[in-house]
């Protein structure tokens, strides 16, 4: 005897699509106003509406860290963030950390240490590492490993990611001043790239 897999009929007409609304996001130092539905994630807002595709979608469920961006300097998963909620916040994406011709020390360290292969998790790793440095918590290799573990890398570049992050940590980017951690500037200047 065969069974049927029957879905319950909708008990209502599907709601009209939620109307779009203007949302202004402050990203990498600039305001951007886009017309989006309220259920649009920050990740989709960046990728599909602002062409800021450096922020990657790896799972859309907060499980892989590829979508990591900095929100007022703190790392968050942009796939779990509704864009509209983050109006008025300072959002920094990988594009804001440094461009191809003005790489940040962290970006340069990732190249130098070959801390990526396919490159898809890389912007998330770098934003996460920048957030980690801003937090000032991690000092040892074990701490960095642990606190970088929200970012999956399927190519398995973990040991090189660790080396890259440690290099920047040890380059005086995190300074203990009278026992206080001094965070590095969020947006590196043109001259800060290491060659």
């Amino acid at each position, binding site marked *: 005897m065969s069974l049927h897999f029957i879905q319950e009929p909708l008990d209502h007409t599907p709601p009209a699509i939620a109307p779009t609304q203007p949302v202004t996001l402050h990203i990498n130092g600039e305001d951007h106003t886009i017309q989006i539905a309220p259920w649009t994630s920050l990740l989709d807002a960046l990728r599909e509406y602002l062409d800021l595709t450096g922020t990657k979608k790896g799972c859309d469920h907060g499980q892989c860290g590829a979508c990591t961006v900095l929100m007022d300097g703190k790392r968050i998963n942009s796939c779990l963030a509704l864009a509209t909620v983050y109006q008025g916040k300072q959002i920094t994406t990988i594009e804001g950390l440094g461009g191809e011709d003005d790489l940040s020390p962290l970006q340069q360290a990732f190249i130098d240490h070959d801390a990526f292969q396919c490159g898809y998790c890389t912007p998330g790793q770098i934003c996460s590492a920048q957030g980690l440095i801003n937090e000032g918590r991690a000092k040892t290799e074990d701490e960095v490993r642990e606190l970088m573990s929200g970012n999956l890398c399927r*190519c398995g570049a*973990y040991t090189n990611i660790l080396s890259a992050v440690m290099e920047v940590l040890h380059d005086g980017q995190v300074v203990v001043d009278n026992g206080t951690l001094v965070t590095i500037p969020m947006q590196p200047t043109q001259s800060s790239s290491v060659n």
Partner: protein
Amino acid sequence: MSQTIATPPTVRLDSDVIGKPISRPEGAAKVSGAAKYAAEYNVPNLWYGYIVDSPIAKGKILKIDVDAVLALPGVKQVFTHENVPSFAWFDRSYKDDVAPGGSPFRPLHEPEIMFSQQPVALVVAETFELARYAASILRIDYEVDENFNTDLEKARAAGKGFDAPKGKTGFLPPPKPKGDAEGAFKAAPHQVTGEYTHHAQHHNPMEMFATTVEWLGDGKKMNIYDKTQGAPNVQQYLRKIFSLSKEEARVVSKFTGGAFGAGLRPQHQVFMAVMAALELEHSVRVSMTRQQMFSMGHRPHTIQDIKLASDEQGYLQSLQHTAFAETSQFEDETETVVNWSGILYKCDNSKFGYELAKIDVDTPADMRAPGAATGSFAIECAVDELSYKAGVDPLEFRLLNYTYSDPTENKPFSSKRLIDCYHEGAKRFGWEQRNPEPRSMREGNMLVGWGMGTGCWDASMQKAAAKASLSADGKLTVHSATNDQGAGTYVIMTQIAAQTLGLPLDQVTFVLGDTNLPEAPLQGGSWTAASVGSAVQATCQEVGKKLLKLAQKMDNSPLDGVAFEDVQFADGHMRANEDITKSVAITEVLATSGEAAVEAESSAQPNPINMLKYSMHSHNAAFVEVKVDEDLGTIHVTRVVNAVAAGRILNPKTARSQVLGGTVWGISMALMEEAYLDNNLGRYMNHNYAEYHVPVNADIHKIDVIFVEEEDDHVNPLGVKGVGEIGMLGVAAAIANAVYHATGKRVRDLPLTIDKLL
């Protein structure tokens, strides 16, 4: 005096870039977010397709209620088997370059459901959010057929196995039997019989499969930005199904966010995106969700039986290795699983077998070191077990049974420095300090274990083509339709081109991933360096020959009468080998000639004579330290030394990364990866990135990579063997063997989870 200042004929100036740890030229694009992957081409007027997949494993679609969805403003179409037009009729039109035997899956073709998560509809809408919502309310009724089986053990017990059919590219049937394997086994003093298993594993590259089709509005012309390991394979697949010309179906894949085999065959999202674009005459993007990436191929669940026996000294007397693997109901995916045992060890009495059984899942697919990762796990665990029975150190046991020729083909190896991997790896690891007694090493409450494993992989080469253009300003651009899924194609091709024409690296650009470029094979099998590398070298040599002719037309040419073979290219100059003061700058040649550019196109293919004469393989030896919490059963891989013999290493920086990645994959296979099937539902239950476990940074500790020197004049013109696969081999077995050494427990079923140790 004049004799002493004469330049020796052997002086060679070298651009010296091959073999150097050069950083990836695409690195800045990747770390700054500028590198565009398939779902990131934001072409104008883009619509979004969202895939709906089946909740049942077997049955039939009864009814699809599209009206409620189509009523939503902004929804453009719902594609299902009911309204997708008929395309090509024959199965062969759906076969891609690496399709196994059988009948390929045709998306949205018929109401029958053959596996859980089978795509059944595509909803296209103006925005991604709308397409996702519309897909969520699409009502589909199914008739469920409960007569399905997704349990390989059950299929085996029911005698459903059949000999794996030949035919898939790269698949080798098991080697022929030798001697009297069973008789020798019975007569031998030391015997091991073991069943070794791993379950389904999913590739899960970080980038999800996606296709953006840019509708160009001129007939059926499209730019198809696809996630793939080979744009040409996708193009030929699409052309056959949709009757498109090469100009109409241009496939582009500049960056591939990992694939590991998942991108060898065209996946269903590219079919859907192109179908929707053709039907709607509009640009369309289709991305899979992470969950949907568990419906497009996996390393097949495989059960292996091994019988090994040795004499008193540890010399192998009998080697028997059979594998029993799953495939789908509609295709016969085959891997080379058992052959590696026969290639690695010398044994006069051997027997091999490989069977498949059909279960109700999607067709498995090649996944990093397909077959070899599976086979190497089983044979290397069994060898460790037998070495203990024979009372011989596991490394010594492997040295006793070392072979200098390939026993399965009775041919010499083109080169094999595995012995150096053993010695250098063991030395770096400190193997000689190992106390062989299980549970003999301890650090606090942690049991310490040291284990080893080894592996080999084909050093193969495919036909590939390239073209090159050297412009008057001395800038060289080389093109080939190959791929870079992270392996380092961009950098090694740049190095080969720069070295061949003696140009600085920053003057050379390598362009890949576009079907408008000369054809290259899929990126897989560790053959890109050999195949495309040889084509790039040959093409640049053609440019060099043309340059020499132009140079010889110059007034008072210093290279007058010099043959191409007697010319060297370095520092932007051509020089005569016999007297390097006879020199001319390449830019000067171009300027004098008045040519805007010198161009050439060429190809390379494997040497059939060498292939007949030699067995060509890379090898490795992995040494692993584990620490096992005696109370909790948690396993930590604290140290790995992976020694690799893979011919010439073009770039030790990126090659090392390949081996690091392979090692991480070995750790992952040993300790974490398993897609859990609920056989009542016929469905992978942990189909997401949180519950399908892969290592995170905290799981990975010290990994030491050694490349031993290995020269090989026979394997290909560059002497390279490829490193994409080899680093993964032996690692999972080394971990299982180390766990035995630490705990005294043999676990033969991967992954090695806590429950199996306690």
